[in-house]
């Protein structure tokens, strides 16, 4: 294949990776930025979204597009509700202490994974894409659905940004992020804000998973890679900075696409991890993060 089409394919693949990654990582970033919780179970919430999407597609009769639309609404809500319950039942009782919450979310990860194994089974199961339009370029064919994923992810991220900047809920979240105690002193119900943020973070992962599941199938162990990549993105972008997360997701996604197409996917992961190490050494707060006081 010639260089031009080769690069085009690499960039398209990278863009899809970046879009899904941006969604997943923004959830992780949101939870850390506002709650200071390192959520190791984030990948499990991602997996849960995909697995629930399969159940919805299986049980809802009618065209695949309808089931998919239903999954896109239903799955983030259910996953968000589970996350909110986990927050109130576990994290709150640990007073959000960093070490304790890490261990607790590791436990949560195992519980969710094993629950999926018991109820969903060990197989990878496909979910049909809402439409099967295929783009036939002169050099190669490409799934139209993959391009739709990029657009959908961008819309969701725009929505998240609007909520954070222009809604009352977003104001409360930002106030809590700025200073938890002062926010509480001003009458903000910090517990509810935390539960809401944790639910929203998990919901974003679930949306990303519903979008990706027609491409890569639902499987109970699928949360590992997104978790790792999300951490890489969030560390490079700066923990808690949504803008940094977006930029880093684009950077990692596109470089992953290009490097893994032209060289090897393993090399792409090696380089991404190396970048994380360099960022931690030379700019520990990340590209866009604020330096800790």
């Amino acid at each position: 294949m010639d260089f031009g089409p080769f690069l085009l394919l690499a960039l398209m693949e990278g863009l899809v990776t970046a879009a899904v990654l941006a969604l997943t990582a923004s959830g992780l970033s949101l939870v850390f930025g506002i709650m200071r919780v390192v959520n190791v179970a984030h990948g499990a919430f991602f997996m849960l979204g995909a697995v629930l999407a399969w159940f919805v597609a299986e049980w809802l009769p009618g065209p695949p597009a309808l089931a998919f639309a239903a999954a896109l609404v239903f799955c983030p809500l259910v996953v968000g509700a589970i996350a909110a319950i986990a927050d109130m039942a576990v994290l709150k009782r640990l007073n959000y202490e960093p070490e304790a919450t890490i261990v607790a979310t590791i436990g949560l990860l195992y519980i969710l994974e094993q629950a999926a194994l018991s109820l969903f089974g060990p197989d990878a199961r496909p979910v049909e894409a809402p439409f099967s339009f295929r783009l036939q370029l002169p050099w190669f064919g490409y799934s139209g659905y993959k391009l739709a994923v990029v657009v959908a992810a961008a819309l969701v991220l725009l929505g998240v940004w609007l909520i954070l900047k222009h809604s009352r809920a977003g104001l409360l979240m930002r106030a809590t992020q700025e200073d938890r105690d002062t926010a509480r002193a001003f009458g903000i119900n910090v517990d509810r804000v935390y539960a809401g943020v944790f639910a929203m973070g998990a919901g974003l992962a679930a949306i990303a998973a519903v979008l990706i599941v027609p491409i890569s199938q639902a499987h109970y162990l699928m949360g590992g890679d997104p978790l790792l990549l999300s951490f890489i993105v969030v560390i490079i972008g700066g923990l808690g900075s949504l803008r940094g997360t977006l930029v880093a997701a684009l950077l990692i996604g596109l470089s992953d696409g290009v490097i893994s197409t032209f060289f090897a996917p393993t090399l792409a992961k090696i380089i991404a991890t190396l970048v994380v190490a360099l960022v931690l050494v030379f700019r520990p707060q990340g590209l866009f993060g604020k330096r800790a006081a």
Partner: protein
Amino acid sequence: MTKRWISTTPTRRSVLQGIAGAGALVAAGVTPRFVQAQSSAPLKLGFQLHRTGIGASYGRWYERTASAALKVLNEAGGINGRPVEIVFEDDGTDPKRGAEVVEKLTTQAGCDLIFGTLFSHVVMGSAPRAGELRVPYLVCSEGHHVASGALNRWALQPGITDVKSQVQAMAPWVTANLGKKVTMVFPDYAFGHDHRDFFTAAVAAQGGEVIKHIAIPPTETSFTRYLPQIPTETEVLYHVMVGPAVLTFVKELGEFYGSGARPEIFGFIDSLEAVDIASPGLEFLDGTHFWEGHPRYKQQDASEHEAFYRAAVGVDDSGASVSDGKDIATYAHMFSAWETLFVIKAAMEAAGYQGPADRQKVVEAIEAMTGFDEGREHPQGAKTFNGKTHQAFGHQSISRVEGGRLLRVHQTAIEDGLYPDEVDYTTQSF
């Protein structure tokens, strides 16, 4: 001189007392009425099962196949007249866990031997422990690691042909009918490396050439990025993939080529085991070819033994579960679990197996075997067995996808897959 408090020689009085005592016991009927020549306790066979992890769809069917074979075996009187049990233990398709499972089955569950392992990295991780524990370890993995001499005298593969033999047998057909310039896509670990090494050599022996190797990490979930590496002058694309993402791989291959020109495609059915060929997105596979160890769709000339086997395991004529048409079997491979169990029966009976002390005799009995006839116990077909390399050799099928079904177009002879011995395990110590 010291006084001896305990006499070392029996006195007349003590002997008489002893005789009287023993007589009293016999009279009271304490000794058993008869002593059996052998135990009638059930034999316990350990099954290292991929119930979870990336091999789970194989594991589900291996368990069903082995259980069905066990039922047939026990109904026919078990082994040496003793009933047989199978202890299934999940290894998570993980090599480290695999070694622990071998240990657990042997020392805790008290199994007489272990069989059933499919994924080659689990075999590689487990076989050394089986050797240390001196327990027969009969794998169903296709890997060349048994016949290559990489394992030990306790590891055997009597139920399925290894990859080296499979690809060597099929390469002439591929180069003669599909093309001579081949690009290979394979998983980047032991099993895939067997394909890479032996198919490349086999194609070269036929005057063809493998022009590109594309190795894919076994945990990969997205494949489009690898596909541009396929050179445009490729005449045959050879693919073999495993794990939960196989359907994604084949779908993305279809998207990539779309309606444009594509090379001939020859795949190992591994890329589609447990996947319905009529799945949406797989229409492009029509006219492509697959290797099958055992044809998934019942062929016109199928033997009565094949029909018996399908019914016993619960597989319909399209290779799906009789109770759930969406549950597609790993049909091309799972016969090995069935056939291995009957090899175990033959070996244990030949060895006069009594208990774990006779484990070595079981290995020696299998080493003495030279082949198996087609029949209920070997429904996939006749095989020869090489006792020196611990490896079985059988027929391979090449099938063509026609209208969403697989139709066999060629069957190799056993001789096509034979190659010079690379090891003589019988010279190794136990």
